[in-house]
């Protein structure tokens, strides 16, 4: 089995399980949204009806009991309005917002960039198969962070982590953090490895530096034949595509590569790349080159022409992929902001904040009422499973009888089961 870098990447779970075409991504999100919407509407309607009945009961018995769902803030069940669910776009904005908040949270907990980036990808992968209407990103992001720490060998003890993320206003208990853990690993399909472009960028820049220093030994498909020729050529690269060739000193070139190209590209990878779909759509290798392309196009194009013959169709395809990927990165809010004046930036931020605020408010009214308390849900599931696993033959028999009796009872009550049930629920 002869393997090259590409083959190794193909064996990764990131490629096998978490790479999609743009259409596949859109379809999956639409499906997730549809399912969540339906479920929220069903569950809300059911709970509202129960509430009404309970209220009727209470009024007939003259008892002003407290409803179990009676909370101070209005939520989906207590509100009387028609449930207005999030759209796919709104969901994405919402998840993105929480990814950004998670980055801040990670930095607060002193996790490395690697853990934070992994956590963000865990969240994005999770919300591909789950809607924030079902599971609120606030809860999920904490657990995802905890999990990412464990996965990246930067484990913080649960108690320590819980204290770390608790603030004056909100106290987070260890149970709250653990409750959705299985939920998350299941949605992640037990894939814990995320391949990031950070180390790749470093590797690429080191390789470029060895070209600059005239020590390059790698494959060379360019017109410049020797390492010394390559070094001369890279010193003469124009600053902008189509610009005039300039002669740079070694120091200037080193600055150009390390400061003017590497630093902004690293920043793009850390922030923008994590907030967009590029991890799903492109390989880490393409992502770092795209990020660098935004910072220094002539450098990347020169570098690629060294790596592969510029006449080959593969070269063309790589360039196309890099430009597409770069477009996704550059059109993202966090990247656009960089090139705007301060007041424009402030305006964009304000707009964004307002939108997020609206979404958070809207979500309150369309949150799946069954999934609000994850701790209880988790306990119930465990209890249920423990009962299930303790089944011995005797118990199983008794259960079966119970079930049959119950079926009889319910049949007399509900009438026999409907053979086809296709009616759309209200």
């Amino acid at each position, binding site marked *: *089995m*002869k*393997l*090259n*870098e*590409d083959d*190794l*990447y*193909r064996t990764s779970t990131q*490629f*096998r*399980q978490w*790479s*999609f*075409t*743009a259409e*596949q991504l859109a*379809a*999956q999100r639409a*499906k997730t949204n549809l399912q969540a919407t339906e479920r929220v509407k069903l569950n809300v309607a059911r709970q509202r009806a129960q509430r009404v009945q309970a209220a009727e009961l209470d009024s007939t018995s003259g008892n002003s009991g407290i409803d179990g769902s009676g909370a101070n803030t209005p939520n989906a069940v207590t509100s009387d309005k028609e449930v207005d669910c999030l759209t796919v776009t709104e969901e994405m904005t919402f998840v993105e917002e929480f990814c950004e908040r998670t980055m801040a949270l990670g930095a607060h907990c002193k996790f490395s960039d690697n853990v934070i980036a992994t956590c963000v990808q865990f969240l994005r992968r999770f919300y591909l198969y789950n809607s924030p209407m079902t599971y609120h990103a606030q809860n999920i992001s904490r657990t995802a962070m905890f999990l990412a720490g464990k996965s990246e060998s930067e484990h913080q003890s649960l108690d320590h982590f819980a204290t770390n993320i608790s603030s004056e206003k909100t106290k987070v208990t260890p149970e709250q953090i653990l409750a959705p853990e299985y939920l998350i690993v299941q949605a992640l*399909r*037990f894939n814990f490895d995320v*391949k990031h*472009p950070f*180390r*790749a*960028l*470093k*590797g*690429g*820049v*080191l*390789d470029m*530096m*060895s070209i600059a*220093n005239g*020590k390059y*030994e*790698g*494959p060379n498909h360019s017109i410049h034949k020797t390492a010394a020729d390559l070094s001369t050529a890279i010193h003469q690269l124009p600053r902008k595509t189509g610009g005039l060739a300039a002669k740079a000193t070694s120091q200037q070139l080193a600055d150009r590569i*390390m400061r003017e190209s590497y630093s902004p590209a690293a920043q793009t990878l850390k922030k923008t790349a994590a907030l967009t779909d590029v991890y799903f*759509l*492109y*390989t*880490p*290798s*393409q992502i*770092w*080159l795209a990020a660098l392309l935004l910072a220094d196009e002539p450098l990347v194009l020169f570098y690629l022409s060294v*790596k*592969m013959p510029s006449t080959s169709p*593969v070269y063309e*395809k*790589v360039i196309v*992929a890099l430009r597409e990927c770069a477009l996704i990165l550059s059109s993202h809010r966090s990247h656009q902001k960089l090139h705007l004046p301060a007041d424009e930036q402030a305006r964009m931020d304000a707009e964004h904040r307002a939108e997020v605020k609206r979404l958070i408010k809207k979500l309150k009214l369309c949150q799946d009422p069954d999934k609000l308390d994850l701790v209880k849900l988790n306990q119930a599931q465990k209890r249920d499973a423990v009962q299930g696993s303790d089944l011995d033959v005797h118990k199983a028999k008794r259960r079966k009888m119970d079930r049959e009796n119950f079926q009889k009872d319910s049949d007399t009550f509900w009438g026999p089961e409907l053979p086809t049930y296709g009616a759309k629920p209200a």
Partner: protein
Amino acid sequence: MSKVTSRANGGQVRQGEAGGASPLSKSLYSLSLKPSSRPRTDAASDVCPVCKSSRYLNPNMKFLVNPECYHKMCESCVDRIFSHGPAPCPIAGCARTLRKGKFREATFEDLKVEREVDIRRRVASIMNKEESDFETLKDYNDYLEQVEEITWNLILKIDVDETNHRLQRWADAQAAETGATRRTYEPDPSMAGASGVVLKKGGTQRRALETSSGNTTDTNVKDKGFNFHGLKKKVAPPPEAPFDPFDGWSIAPQYYTLQNDYDADWLTKHKREKEQLVGGYQWSDFYNRALQDAFGGLTVFIDDEIRARDIPSGDAAIGTERAATAAAGGQDVNMDDIF
């Protein structure tokens, strides 16, 4: 030439002895079961022909034979005569040189049978073709027929020298073909007298034979001693490739060559840290990993490669099933599942 004569002779003898039935069974029958034409008394068979001591007096007496001449004598005679090295057979009119080491107990009471079995064993070890080595069954049967003839020539002492030579050449040819170590054919020592060649010692005889046969194979490679019709050309198995400790696995980058060292500001700081190097940290590991990351998947185009593969979409049941398949590693070439 001699083939024809031997065949004719063998045929005559066989017919005369066994009346044309299956040669082997008949010969065994005639040699061992049929009451011998020369009646022997039990008493005679229990007396050592050399020292004349009788089993009657010594119930533990053991008789030994030497395949040089198959003359029977008691164990104490063997000890007495041959303990000091090779000596001539004490039976009158034999005088063949015998060695103590070759003496053994006869398996069969009738020494003719003993001898025939020895011969058959020797021939069978050389003429060891199987049915699968021939193109047709008839060719195989013809071969068996010929082998039987050779065997009978040796048993009946017809053209012994010639036959032995041919067997040796055949053995050499076979060995050369398979590339195996040369198997030496040991001709029946008892034939030496019959062929009129007087040899002092078995060893000398063997050596002489080896050299002569060696010469023949050298001078006349084509002469394999025998020619069998329809024998498949032996295809020697390809020589075993040298052992590959990696078993064919390799990881060879296509877009970079790992250099011994790389320079960058932020590296210099780390590089000075001796603390890392004491524990065996290797910068080349980092360089390799960083560059592997840098180019891993550069020419993997997800849009093309993934398009063929569906993610859960459309029908829920089918979608999840596919996802489950994918999760189970359905993409993996190692899993020859029905997915």
